[in-house]
């Protein structure tokens, strides 16, 4: 049936590159010769030559996870359980750092927090301090940026847990006479902890595979984590592909294990978070404290959104970016040069094109897969779910590695073209897309489709007249999500770009390593602006087309 065809496509997309990744990791023959001449496990020994890297990875990931959980918990608490003003607006705004991408955050915080040239440190010295106030190029600096920009997933998960808690449980405690504090400690916290634990595992797995912050902030200081080490090993001359592949496989194994754990503990079987009945959580009136909490929210958004954007703008207008520029330092030159850089203009167009392509094809592919896994009753749908969720366990960079090898030898010449990037994106975004669409799909009462059946409608008619219209809001949300995700993608694109297939985010990285920081910030700003405009247009259009709320 067509269902198996779609499943087969997904399986090939996901497993073909993974095979090549493993092949490279086990290749102990001459690295220049393909296919491999000898197989063995020696490359894995190579990893142990770099114990510092493993330690670094752990340090950064743990620190980032803890920070992300703290931010996430505090913000979730404030925004779902207290009557801080502007709750709903803030909840929407919490997603903005994700759209800004951790790369931008890293660039901005590098400008802010470098020990010598960072603006914050310059201001500190101007105020009479010595040395530097903060050093962003350390493990904790990297973790800070990671937590700010990649940690919003912790917020989303914890907020969901808090929202899905039955307020009656707390009310029961209070009726008996327990104080608010006691209720929180004895009732709320224990109920929330399993969900927080799940979020912790999930976030930790994500942080292990994080790339952008460590690349910008760690690499100049020779501070490597596994992902940046893999990148370096691939880029350096001569490249140590096999060791890199072995590292990739090891990282993948750890992440896979973590996500397996997560699934066991939290999901009890399915990757889709079904919130089920949505309770209205009790919102506590915290009195005048709510203005303090408002300040906390504003502070968070400043650190994650406001400050970085202003910093980037500030730097882009100077010849050599400093905290206290003289009159001659101001210039519009950076913008002039940036506009003429062909690589930027074509990268922007490519990224937008790719975004469209990925989102459109992705929604169809992932919609079918979601239906296949969660709605049809075909045997083997559990297996398909595993395959589809597989890419989540593989850091993008590592996956791209496998893709690189896989598609170089492919008879159809897509290597170095946008098609390869499209394939890569469709593959790495499978978990994201399927999960989003499935979440909406499962909220639709099955009886709506069954009723269409009972009215005599065959499958295609049903899908067209009932399923898709009901799914439309979810499909649109998934489309936008995929669009943004493909534009901000870094790990996979950076290895797969070719001369005719430059895309935005890796171009910014290239610029960081190859041009002045002022020019880089200019590029980053221009690209953020274009994407923001694109998003506004898209959201406006889809709101027009948008469907009716589901009951």
């Amino acid at each position, binding site marked *: 049936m067509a269902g198996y065809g779609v499943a087969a496509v997904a399986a090939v997309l996901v497993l073909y590159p993974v095979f090549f990744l493993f092949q490279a990791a086990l290749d102990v023959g001459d690295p220049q010769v393909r296919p491999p001449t000898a197989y063995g496990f020696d490359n894995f020994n190579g990893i142990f030559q770099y114990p510092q890297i493993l330690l670094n990875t752990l340090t950064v990931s743990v620190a980032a996870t803890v920070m992300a959980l703290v931010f996430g918990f505090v913000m979730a608490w404030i925004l779902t359980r207290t009557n801080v003003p502007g709750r709903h607006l803030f909840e929407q705004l919490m997603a903005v750092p994700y759209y800004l991408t951790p790369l931008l955050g890293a660039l901005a915080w590098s400008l802010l927090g470098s020990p010598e040239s960072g603006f914050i440190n310059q201001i500190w010295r101007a105020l009479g301090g010595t040395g530097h106030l903060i050093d962003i190029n350390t493990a904790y600096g990297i973790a800070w940026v990671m937590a700010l920009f990649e940690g919003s997933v912790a917020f989303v998960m914890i907020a969901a847990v808090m929202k899905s808690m039955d307020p009656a449980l707390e009310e029961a405690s209070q009726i008996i006479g327990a104080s608010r504090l006691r209720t929180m400690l004895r009732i709320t916290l224990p109920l929330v902890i399993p969900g927080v634990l799940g979020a912790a595992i999930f976030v930790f797995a994500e942080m292990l595979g994080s790339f952008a912050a460590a690349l910008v902030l760690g690499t100049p200081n020779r501070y490597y984590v596994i992902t940046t080490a893999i990148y370096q090993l691939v880029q350096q001359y001569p490249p140590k592909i096999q060791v890199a592949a072995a590292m990739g496989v090891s990282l993948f194994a750890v992440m896979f294990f973590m996500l397996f754990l997560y699934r066991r503990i939290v999901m009890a079987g399915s990757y889709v978070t079904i919130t089920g009945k949505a309770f209205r959580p009790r919102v506590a009136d915290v009195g005048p404290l709510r203005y303090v909490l408002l300040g906390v929210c504003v502070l968070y958004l400043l650190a994650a959104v406001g400050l970085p954007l202003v910093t980037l703008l500030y730097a882009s207008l100077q010849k050599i970016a400093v905290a206290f520029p003289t009159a001659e330092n101001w210039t519009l030159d950076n913008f002039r040069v940036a506009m003429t850089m062909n690589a930027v203009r074509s990268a922007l167009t490519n990224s937008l094109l790719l975004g469209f392509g990925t989102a459109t094809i992705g929604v169809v592919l992932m919609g079918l897969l979601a239906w296949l896994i969660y709605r049809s009753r075909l045997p083997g749908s559990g297996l398909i779910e595993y395959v589809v969720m597989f890419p989540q366990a593989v850091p993008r960079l590592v996956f791209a590695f496998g893709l690189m090898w896989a598609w170089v030898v492919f008879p159809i010449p897509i290597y170095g073209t946008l098609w390869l990037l499209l394939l890569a994106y469709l593959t790495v975004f499978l978990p994201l897309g399927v999960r989003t669409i499935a979440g909406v799909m499962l909220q639709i*009462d099955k*009886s*709506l489709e*069954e*009723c*269409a*059946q*009972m*009215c*005599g*409608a*065959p499958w295609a*008619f*049903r899908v067209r*007249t*009932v399923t898709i*219209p*009901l799914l439309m809001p979810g499909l649109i949300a998934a489309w936008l999500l995929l669009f943004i995700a493909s534009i901000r993608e870094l790990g996979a694109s950076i290895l797969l770009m070719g001369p005719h297939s430059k895309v935005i985010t890796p171009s910014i990285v290239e610029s960081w390593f190859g041009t002045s920081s002022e020019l880089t910030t200019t590029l980053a700003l221009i690209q953020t602006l274009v994407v923001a405009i694109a998003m506004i247009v898209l959201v406006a259009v889809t709101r027009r087309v948008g*469907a*009716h*709320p*589901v*009951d």
Partner: protein
Amino acid sequence: MPASLPGAPASSSPSKPHIEVDRLELYYGSVPAVRGVSFNVLPGEQLTLLGPSGCGKTTTLRAIAGLEQPTAGEIRIDGVTVYSAEQRINMRAEKRGLSMVFQSYAIWPHMTVFENVAYGLRVRRAGAAEIAEKVHHALDMVQMRSFASRRAAQLSGGQQQRVALARAFVFSPSVLLFDEPLSNLDAKLRADMRIELRELQHRLGITSVYVTHDLEEALAMSDRIVVMRDGLIEQTGTPDEIYRLPNSAFVADFVGSANLIRGRHRADLDTDGLIALETPAGHIVHGMAYGRPVGAELVVSVRTVHLRISTEPPAAAQNVWRVPVRQTVFQGDFTQVHLGWGPQHLIARCAAMEPLAAGREVYITVEPRHVVVLGA
């Protein structure tokens, strides 16, 4: 594989069953939902599957609809086998030519009321004029005509219910399946809708299979009732039969409230076609066997409404006892009186009366024909 069934009402002879369910079994993995159920539905009749939650009634209904895949057995509709485990036949739901009203109404929120009702006709490629006529007619029948262009999502529960109903019969199906359609309505509305549904069904003459856990509903609307428990059928019969002559303790207590009395058969005290029973406390009760086997140990059922309470000794020959009142519970239209009877509790339901003080001694009596010997 037979083609889809026609949508015209069954016109065959009244005695030939319209729907036949034969030794149906349905297991979810190793968990049994339906463990061997057989019954027939005659053309134009309303058959109700009644039972507590988990008894398998909804599963059976959905199996007939084609929305669940049974594990064993056969289902035939108008003589055509739509499901057979042996012959490996399983006709898709959309081809069986049935129609269904869902518990949640399943009104499509993205369509208007008109579009919702018209759906089944559109599937059947009816022309615009025909659709307009039939839809309006159907909406008239459920008094929702003025809502035709309203967005379906804006309707109240009761309104959605009517639209679901209109949608279900607009394309003149031969069979209507109802999955607890009234359970989400409040009590008053439910009572009204019951009557409307019954009238509608009679008017259209459609064969119906109705699922509910609500006793009153079943008794009010059905031609025949199938009482189910734990995936099996307890008893099949008309509402009157089931009410008056339950054949097991379960049915007796489920269909109306009943007192169950156990005792030894006192054949020596049998008289006039009545059976005598002695309780462990020594009371002698006279009742009727109604053709059920009478063993050494018996159980009889006495409906709470059949226990008469009086302050003066009644003029009956058998089944008179003087007992204390334990408690009275005011229930509006009736009062429930709990009485002590030896070691046992008896419950009597009477029309609203003066409350009786606890401890007060009264006389209770019940006509022997209302004391029913239960089957195995």
